[in-house]
């Protein structure tokens, strides 16, 4: 048993936990961080795009040290039906800048490095330790944790729950409810290895330039889902995710969908001849603003995916995790510097600061989006992709049909599939949710 007492215990060494532990350790606090994996990152799955701005706020010099894959110069959005895709690509040489804005990373490697910085800052990091329970005192305040490694309890003034999307401890302790099937997506992912030159040729890249593809459409078979293809240096991350509720309802298999995506005629040539080295799966919080639970209480705060802080529309999660971890740590450090106790009232400072940040502002903006995508998934993920593909094929195919007739046919196909009121309603609903 660890006899000493800590200023703070951080559960989890993912993006949120590392940001919190680093920030508190840098401010001279005595921090214990507990991670169940063999090393930090060995349990973590991400696409993965790293957003530089949020990383810079934690470790300004990270570009020279961190294991980064490629800086992104191009983003592709694909709307897919079974045999085609309609694409919007944005590529700019402006992204070849001195301090690039986005990078692809490999989470297991990145987290290991991030954790080394946490240790350097003075935190104690214990891996291969699963926290099994939160400890309360007789006034129901959280005062520490129990782990599966040692007998007894470890005590601290405050516990930072950075335990990721499943959030087992918080649920068990009754701090928040278990994620619901329509608030989380299951993503499956593979790592496809290819020679560097092959990746660069297939994706039109030079040097460390990178590209990411986000895909939606019939690949998710009418469910709320998205596919992704991210270019790393010597491998391609490829995956697809759908709401758990949809998997439950349709009895589609995640691996079946993944293989279907890989076989799509637009995707297969990109990964042809690759060697797969890993198959992973992970949940993603998709409930948005309305799914955010209580963020603080007597002796505890919750950060990152465990607090459902994830912007599914923009595919941002790690940056919200890092930022919420950092802000919680700053709030805790402020309370401590005033020599005040870690009560719920004092820790509400964290929520106040988070409300002011992009984290809550962005999630608020899209608060109606998750529901819309879910209740209208057939339209947005099946009907429209098919209609749009047909419309464009009709537009580009030269077959002697007068253009006026072609346009009429396209319009008719839309009205037939969704009716005028349906089309109008979808447009209004989408605009309202986006605003």
């Amino acid at each position: 048993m660890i006899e000493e007492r800590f200023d703070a215990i951080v559960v989890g060494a993912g993006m949120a936990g590392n940001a919190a532990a680093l920030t508190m350790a840098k401010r001279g606090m005595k921090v214990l961080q507990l991670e169940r994996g063999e090393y930090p990152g060995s349990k973590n799955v991400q696409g993965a795009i790293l957003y530089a701005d949020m990383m810079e706020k934690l470790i300004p010099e990270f570009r020279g040290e961190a294991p980064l894959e490629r800086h992104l110069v191009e983003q592709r959005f694909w709307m897919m039906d079974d045999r085609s895709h309609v694409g919007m690509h944005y590529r700019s040489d402006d992204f070849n800048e001195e301090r690039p804005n986005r990078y692809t990373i490999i989470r297991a490697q990145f987290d290991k490095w991030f954790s080394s910085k946490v240790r350097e800052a003075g935190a104690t990091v214990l891996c291969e330790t699963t926290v099994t329970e939160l400890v309360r005192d007789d006034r129901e305040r959280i005062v520490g944790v129990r782990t599966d490694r040692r007998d007894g309890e470890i005590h601290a003034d405050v516990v930072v729950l950075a335990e990721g999307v499943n959030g087992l401890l918080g649920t068990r302790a009754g701090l928040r409810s278990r994620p619901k099937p329509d608030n989380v997506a299951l993503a499956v992912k593979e790592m496809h290895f290819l020679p560097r030159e092959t990746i660069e040729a297939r994706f039109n890249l030079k040097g460390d330039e990178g590209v990411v593809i986000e895909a939606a459409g019939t690949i998710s078979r009418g469910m709320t889902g998205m596919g992704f293809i991210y270019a790393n240096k010597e491998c391609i991350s490829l995956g697809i995710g759908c709401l758990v509720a949809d998997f439950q309802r349709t009895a589609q298999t995640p691996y079946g969908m993944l293989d279907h995506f890989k076989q799509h005629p637009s995707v297969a040539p990109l990964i042809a001849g690759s060697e797969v080295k890993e198959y992973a799966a992970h949940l993603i919080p998709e409930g948005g603003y309305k799914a955010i639970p209580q963020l603080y209480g007597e002796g505890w705060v919750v950060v990152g995916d465990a607090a459902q802080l994830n912007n599914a529309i923009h595919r941002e999660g790690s940056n919200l995790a890092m930022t919420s971890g950092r802000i919680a740590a700053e709030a805790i450090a402020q309370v401590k510097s005033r020599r005040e106790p870690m009560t719920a009232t004092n820790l509400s400072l964290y929520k106040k600061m988070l409300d002011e940040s992009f984290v809550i502002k962005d999630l608020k903006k899209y608060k109606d989006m998750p529901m819309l995508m879910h209740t209208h998934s057939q339209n947005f993920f099946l009907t429209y992709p098919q209609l749009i593909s047909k419309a464009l094929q009709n537009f580009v195919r030269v077959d002697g049909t007068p253009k006026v007739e072609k346009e009429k046919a396209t319009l008719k196909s839309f009205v037939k599939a969704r009716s005028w009121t349906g089309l109008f309603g979808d447009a209004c609903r989408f605009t309202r949710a986006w605003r």
Partner: protein
Amino acid sequence: MNVEPTVRVEDKLYYNRYLVDVGRPHVTVRAHTTPSPQLLALLSACPARCYELNDNGQVEITVDGCIECGTCRVIAEPTGDIKWSYPRGGYGVLFKFG
């Protein structure tokens, strides 16, 4: 169930590294005679295909290939059909890339 015959999950899991905690499964299925709809959903929803039907039509789990995603917990823990925890520290799946 609607499991696609062309895809063999076993082949996918073969790429992964695991440290199996022999004799201490972190997920268990409650004994039953007829499986609930939630349990049946796990046959297709589990990305590692850990759940199988036995000859008596009951759902069984083998956790060795579990990737610790939590999907089965979200679906079948509320009904009490399964008990779900993380493996002991250091055990379970070990992602090299993640």
